[in-house]
């Protein structure tokens, strides 16, 4: 595959992530912040998001596993996850967190457990997608090409 083909593949893949709702405008914001002086910015922020999320998902598992569930604590964890997913544009994770918080309010353990599964699923999906995207970027750069700029108006 030549560089041009790889770049087109990258564009198609990125577009699909937006169309399918995995990513939203905030992800584009992050891409805008990347330049020659900070070529790894997006990868760095997303890595922080991955670390943060994995910690929070563990904490959520733990909190919901308790005999007497502390819903305030559960809500606090979900709030954090909602915040960081929103900050990187991981739309579906964010939406799953919003739904989750509603059930925390209701103090419904069963529903919360289902929500947690949903959040985990969305997180795994977006993690895979982003890792694929970053791999494509590495291939382009390794082949001497540059990463295209995403257009906002697609």
């Amino acid at each position: 595959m030549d560089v041009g083909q790889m770049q087109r593949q990258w564009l198609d893949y990125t577009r699909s992530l937006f169309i399918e709702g995995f990513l939203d405008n905030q992800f584009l914001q992050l891409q805008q912040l990347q330049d020659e002086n900070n070529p790894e910015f997006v990868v760095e922020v997303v890595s922080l998001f991955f670390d943060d999320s994995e910690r929070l998902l563990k904490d959520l598992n733990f909190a919901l596993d308790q005999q007497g569930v502390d819903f305030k604590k559960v809500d606090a964890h979900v709030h954090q996850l909602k915040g960081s997913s929103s900050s990187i544009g991981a739309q579906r994770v964010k939406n799953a967190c919003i739904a989750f918080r509603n059930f925390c309010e209701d103090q419904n353990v069963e529903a919360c457990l289902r929500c947690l599964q949903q959040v985990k699923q969305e997180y795994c999906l977006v993690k895979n997608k982003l890792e694929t995207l970053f791999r494509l970027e590495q291939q382009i750069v390794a082949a001497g090409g540059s990463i295209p700029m995403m257009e906002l108006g697609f």
Partner: protein
Amino acid sequence: MTQVMERDGVVSEEVHVLAVDDSLVDRKVIERLLKISACKVTAVDSGISALQLLGLDEQRTSESDDFVGLKVDLIITDYCMPGMSGYDLLKKIKGSSTFREIPVVIMSSENILPRIDRCLEEGAKDFIVKPVKLSDVKRLKNYMSTATRDVSAAEAGGCSGGGGGGGGGINKRKLSDTTAFDYLSSSPPSISSSITPLSSPSDSSSSPSPSPLSSPIRSLDSPIRRLKMTGAD
């Protein structure tokens, strides 16, 4: 890294922003947003750390200590933080004779009108609904100038004006990303009427922009250009 910027033969210092947020992801993003907007940034993870850096923490009984705190031109803080909230931090800063002239901006993921009102009434200069975008930071540059370091009334005049109840009107309407600029045209003269020059569509993150995005952003980064644009009211 130099703190002094030179452009068109004019030398000026970069504005220094203190960013407070318990989320590592958000700290990284806000730091980058500010740096790309030609600001020097110090990012901390709590209100307590912020107060310590400023030299305003409880440890000091008087502000006439020898301690020279960090000189900042703007404080931007998350609202929801464990321990000291952004609101508490705001109150502490506005309650200090040394620091109350520093503009404070609150960020929150939750768009709660009573919360926004409370913050503005307590003297917050602005309220940003997360996630923070480049257009939000650009708007902030209006409040930022190194002149406030001298606690001068000139640039900082808007600060105390923002404390009144009537100041709440502007930012209440920041209800969604796409309406971020709706309220700009209706700003009361006492507060931030200098915002209006920023409402040009090319700056908005929500409008399509086919060209590589780094160059349009760069051209507006200079604090000098920023000051020239806003001008006098």
